[in-house]
């Protein structure tokens, strides 16, 4: 909603018509001779294209034989993992890779072996021997290369590079520690960053938004190269792909971003259109676009310069890529290619192909891309059949050698989780502390002290009481949103790679005004409004971080986490470990937890995040904690889900002596904090429930003489139990409270662990006080839904120590507990 863009009713309401650009279909018609004549290829280039295509075919054949016959060339092996093969699609893959350098990044799908090999082989070809040797020597300290060398029969550095590539990929697919990702990625996630091969994704369309984030990274951090998002035609139905395309298509890149930032993102959506979405046929059955290329017209006036090209002719694909790459370099992105190809194998080896006829398969095989290209080479007099056979034999031999090495348990061991059962646990987080992920000078509009918000905060009281002990007025109190702001603005001035975006993030300053002032401080490419596309907001952030940047995506309401479920639960937490710790994931997702807004805007979903390994989860509820934890989150290299509560954005600091420090400080993630010392019962709270627990503690002391120790969890993952155990050993009783609906919440996890750790010290079982297992009712009825101060006393009276003359306000009896559970509420 920039004021700079005037929405003119006269213009908007004017009559007219939308003219869609023409989308070329199969327009490439050059012969091999034409291409040679134009100097586009040498003979060697064309023979290498043949070699690369055959290499992919043999690689997939090997995997198919292993899956279906339990071995390859008579050497048995059982591969229980997945194998989504791309035989038939070789020309599309090799064509895709041909024009790319190692600065160009590709992202893939679950069926991307061909793309990896094609890009790898191409990278080996264009890297100097020195560069290639360096890459191989340095990767896993030479561990992968050393095994590959054992099967290397001599030849050039590039020949060794091919051994290295094939071995690394096979070993990864077979889950070996010497594989490209220590065997933790596997068939569907194999990748190799030094060759510009970024993660493939087992979630259909998963790369659709992540790759856009990579393009954003390249733009914002002025990195060379383009990004190619290889996805299948089936993925075009997926929300994240649509959202990713939407994000990539935003007008603001052209209309609002300034200087060299101005212009479309360097992203090419390359649809490997193999006609099938698992068993569903896209054209004619499950989609309605007729040709996949048509969807480009829905995103940009230039239809993303979409073309439908023949993916059975590598030269047609290369021709299209040359033009698209040039367009992207002219900042005309995003672009779209619909590369028509065909998958010989089923979705997986278990697929019986019941959805297609033998005739159809045979018809495509009759036009096989490798055979056809070989014929063209022969027709052009570039190679004899013997020469082609020799190329085939050479690649077969190499693959067989690498296969034998990769299945050798001694040379290619698996990660030993029996000997060291913490090995994988140690890989879940990178736990680094880094001031800045960029060497560049951060781009800002003015010195920090000139920022209007910074000036405004400077006049605020940093403790909730003034010097005389009187409460400071709300307007003059340094509050939680100020605390978050201070750490974020600090990082914006420290780390040039840091960007923040989300809905209403710029001029509005975020729906809850945390970013107020940042608009003035930052150019549009560092803080901008995203489309209402949570999957893209998080997905692009993942891609941005994967490439090396720091990013704060914002989810306006916790309830919208569902809209980016795959990104939060399946992508963000996975890539550090799944990459074998090659990738870091410095993404701080700000999530605001609502109230007052009913069933779809007032839910505390912190527990959903704690359930997924690989995410750090924090929920600070004081200005001091919010500032310190945000500083830690932004200093780290791990994904942090940073929850904020809309109930208390304007809370002042009530606990930290001397108020919130002006200078930078960090609070380690994972350390709960004792907010009030007591001896008779412990309250452990998550989120804004802290303030209700304190009220309960007041009443408990006043009326019943019991002193509650109140501990604010602050973080959920990681979580240090030591302070809580110490407290429970003292008090013998604990209530664990939070606003998440009680069933299945993290509160129960805490309760179970505390019971385990403190069993002999417990005077009563830990009591969990969560919200009722209902929809969140309207604000006026919320007191019956969220834990209230009286609930704490009820729990004490009913479950721990009967209180004298106490009349409970809620029914916490065991009988009622059973009845509710029986009813599922």
């Amino acid at each position, binding site marked *: 909603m920039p004021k700079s863009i005037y929405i003119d009713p006269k213009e908007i309401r004017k009559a007219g018509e939308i003219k869609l650009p023409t989308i070329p279909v199969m327009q490439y018609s050059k012969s091999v001779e034409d291409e040679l004549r134009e100097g586009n290829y040498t003979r060697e280039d064309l023979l290498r294209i043949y070699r690369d295509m055959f290499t992919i075919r043999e690689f997939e054949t090997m995997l198919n034989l292993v899956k279906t016959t339990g071995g390859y060339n008579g050497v048995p092996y059982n591969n229980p993992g997945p194998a989504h093969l791309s035989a038939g699609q070789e020309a599309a893959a090799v064509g895709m890779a041909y024009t790319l350098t190692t600065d160009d990044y590709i992202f893939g799908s679950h069926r991307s072996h061909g793309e990896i090999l094609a890009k790898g082989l191409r990278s080996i070809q264009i890297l100097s021997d020195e560069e290639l040797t360096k890459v191989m020597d340095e990767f896993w300290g030479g561990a992968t290369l050393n095994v590959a060398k054992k099967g290397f029969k001599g030849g050039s550095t590039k020949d060794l590079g091919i051994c290295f590539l094939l071995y690394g990929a096979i070993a990864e697919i077979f889950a070996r520690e010497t594989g490209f990702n220590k065997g933790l990625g596997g068939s569907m996630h194999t990748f190799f960053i030094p060759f510009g091969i970024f993660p493939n994704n087992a979630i259909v369309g998963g790369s659709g938004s992540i790759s856009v984030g990579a393009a954003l990274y390249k733009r914002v951090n002025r990195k060379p190269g383009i990004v190619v998002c290889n996805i299948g035609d089936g993925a075009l139905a997926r929300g994240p792909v649509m959202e990713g395309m939407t994000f990539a298509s935003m007008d603001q890149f052209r209309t609002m971003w300034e200087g060299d930032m101005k212009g479309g993102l360097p992203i090419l959506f390359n649809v490997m259109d193999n006609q099938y979405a698992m068993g569903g046929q896209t054209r004619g059955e499950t989609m309605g676009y007729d040709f996949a290329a048509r969807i480009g017209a829905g995103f940009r006036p230039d239809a993303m310069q979409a073309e439908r090209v023949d993916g059975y002719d590598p030269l047609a694909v290369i021709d299209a890529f040359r033009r698209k790459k040039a367009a992207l370099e002219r900042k005309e992105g995003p672009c779209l290619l619909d590369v028509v190809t065909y998958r010989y194998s089923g979705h997986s080896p278990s697929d019986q192909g019941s959805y297609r006829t033998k005739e159809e398969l045979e018809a495509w095989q009759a036009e096989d891309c490798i055979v056809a290209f070989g014929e063209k080479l022969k027709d052009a007099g570039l190679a004899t059949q013997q020469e082609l056979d020799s190329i085939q034999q050479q690649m077969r031999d190499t693959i067989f050698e690498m296969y034998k090495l990769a299945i050798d348990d001694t040379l290619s061991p698996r990660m030993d989780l029996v000997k060291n059962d913490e090995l994988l646990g140690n890989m879940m987080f990178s736990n680094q502390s880094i001031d800045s992920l960029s060497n560049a000078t951060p781009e800002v509009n003015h010195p920090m002290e000139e920022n209007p918000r910074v000036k405004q905060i400077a006049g605020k009281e940093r403790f909730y009481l003034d010097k005389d002990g009187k409460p400071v007025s709300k307007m003059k109190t340094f509050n939680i949103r100020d605390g978050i702001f201070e750490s974020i603005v600090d990082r914006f001035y420290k780390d040039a790679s840091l960007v923040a975006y989300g809905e209403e993030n710029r001029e509005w300053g975020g729906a809850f005004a945390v970013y107020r002032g940042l608009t003035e401080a930052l150019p549009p490419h560092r803080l901008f409004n995203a489309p209402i596309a949570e999957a893209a907001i998080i997905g692009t952030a993942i891609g941005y971080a994967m490439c090396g940047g720091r990013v704060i995506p914002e989810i306006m309401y916790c309830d919208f986490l569902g809209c980016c479920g795959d990104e939060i639960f399946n992508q963000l937490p996975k890539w550090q470990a799944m990459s074998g710790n090659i990738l870091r994931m410095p993404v701080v997702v700000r999530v605001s937890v609502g109230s007052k807004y009913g069933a779809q805007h007032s839910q505390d979903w912190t527990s959903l995040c704690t359930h997924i390994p690989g995410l750090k989860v924090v929920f600070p509820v004081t200005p001091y904690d919010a500032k310190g934890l945000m500083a830690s989150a932004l200093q780290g290299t791990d994904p942090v889900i940073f929850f904020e509560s809309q109930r208390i954005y304007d809370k002042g600091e009530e606990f930290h002596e001397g108020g919130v420090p002006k200078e930078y400080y960090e609070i380690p993630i994972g350390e709960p904090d004792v907010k009030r010392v007591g001896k*008779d019962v412990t309250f452990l709270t998550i989120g804004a429930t802290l303030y209700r627990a304190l009220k309960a503690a007041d009443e408990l002391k006043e*009326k*019943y*003489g*019991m002193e509650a120790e109140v501990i604010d969890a602050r973080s959920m993952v990681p979580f240090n139990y030591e302070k809580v155990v110490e407290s429970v050993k003292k008090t*013998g009783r604990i209530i664990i409270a939070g606003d998440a609906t009680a069933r299945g919440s993290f509160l129960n996890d805490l309760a179970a662990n505390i019971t385990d750790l403190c*069993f*002999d*010290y*417990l*005077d*009563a079982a830990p009591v969990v006080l969560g919200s009722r297992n209902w929809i969140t009712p309207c604000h006026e009825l919320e007191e019956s839904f969220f834990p209230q101060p009286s609930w704490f006393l009820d729990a004490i009276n*009913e*479950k*721990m*120590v*009967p*209180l*004298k003359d106490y009349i409970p306000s809620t029914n916490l009896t065991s009988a009622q507990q059973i009845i509710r559970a029986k009813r599922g509420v």
Partner: protein
Amino acid sequence: MANVVIMPKQGQSVESCIVTEFRKKVGDSVAVGDVLFSYETDKATFEEESKVEGTVLACFFADGDEIPVLTNVMVIGEPGESFEEFAPKSEETSAPAAEAAPKAEEKKADTPVAIAAGPVVEGAPVSPRARRLAEQKGIDTSRVAGSGPYGRIIERDIQAAAAARGPLSGKARAMMAEGGLEAPQAGSGLAGTVRGCDLKEAKPNHTSIAGEGVDFDVVKMTNMRKLIARSMYNSLQNSAQLTHHLSADARRLQALRKKAKKAFEEGRLEANVTINDLVCFAVVKALQKFPNANSHCLGDAMRIFKKVHLGLAVDTERGLMVPAVKNADEMDIVQLSNALKKVADECKKGGINPDLLSPEAASFTVSNLGNYGVEIFTPIINVPQSAILGVNTIVPRPKDTGNGVYEIVPFIGLSLTYDHRALDGGEATRFVKQIAIEIENLDIDF
């Protein structure tokens, strides 16, 4: 100036005494020598006489209270003098003084959360914390009433039970952990520490059987009775005892008794040496040859005595007492006879040195029921001693005098109960046989 009367310390092992009766009440005037109160230790009764003249200004205890030694009991002085400062601290005492009572109520007001515990319920749930605390404090949870939800025994119930008596010594805690015992509100150790000897057999929980029934009366055991009960029970619970029976030819014994009696009557002997004295004399001799029997069994160690301290079971009106005669091995028969008579008389009259009543005081005990015609019995070891000899009545029995000739001769029965942890059957048998040999061959002339 007001004078304080303290509970005297009667012997080293005495930790506390029980006041049997206060003879003087607050307001009474007393003269020097007036009996202020009577009290009893483990097994002896005493009277405390006033050493000053004046008026009883304060009395901090009531009849029946168990009072740690050296604790202030009464204050005597001129009316109007202050005495509050002499009131013993509440944790030192079992029953709070009258003055202390309101203080205790104040404390209650401080913690209004307290809800009276319900009745003691068999099998009541116990919180893990309460269970753990009960173990630490040596409290039997089956005797505690729960005040938690659903009658659960919770930490505060154990704390209340623990507060109702002093802290436990290590030994007392170990004994309590075995169950069946009750600790007093305050023990006799430092700062009211409850020592092992303070423990009493637990009272039954069942208040319903208290009082009178249709065909029975419920009578409280005397403290003495309770102590005996506890130590006897403790003996059988905590040792591996069994008894060997054997007889000795009593002809020489009877002959010596006859001569001694005559000599005593004629004034030639300074003691009326009895059969029991002679048996004891023989026992001392046998013990010197069997040091393992002259011992204490400490579970994982033995205390082997170099001297013989002979315990003697004495039947008194107040119950069984077992005083020790120290260094019996140094005594001739006359000395031994006199010593045995002295301690027995002291027990019967009261005033025996309580130190001599401790089971630790004797190295071996003799219990003689022969006078009562008992032919055979299984005495209970006075633990930690390793053995006890029961002396039975003399019974005429046929004896093979050789060549198939049997003669009726008097035999005295000997029943040796020994702790199999300390002695094996062979050694025990040889020991009791040695007693018989000593009895048959007593080398004394009167």
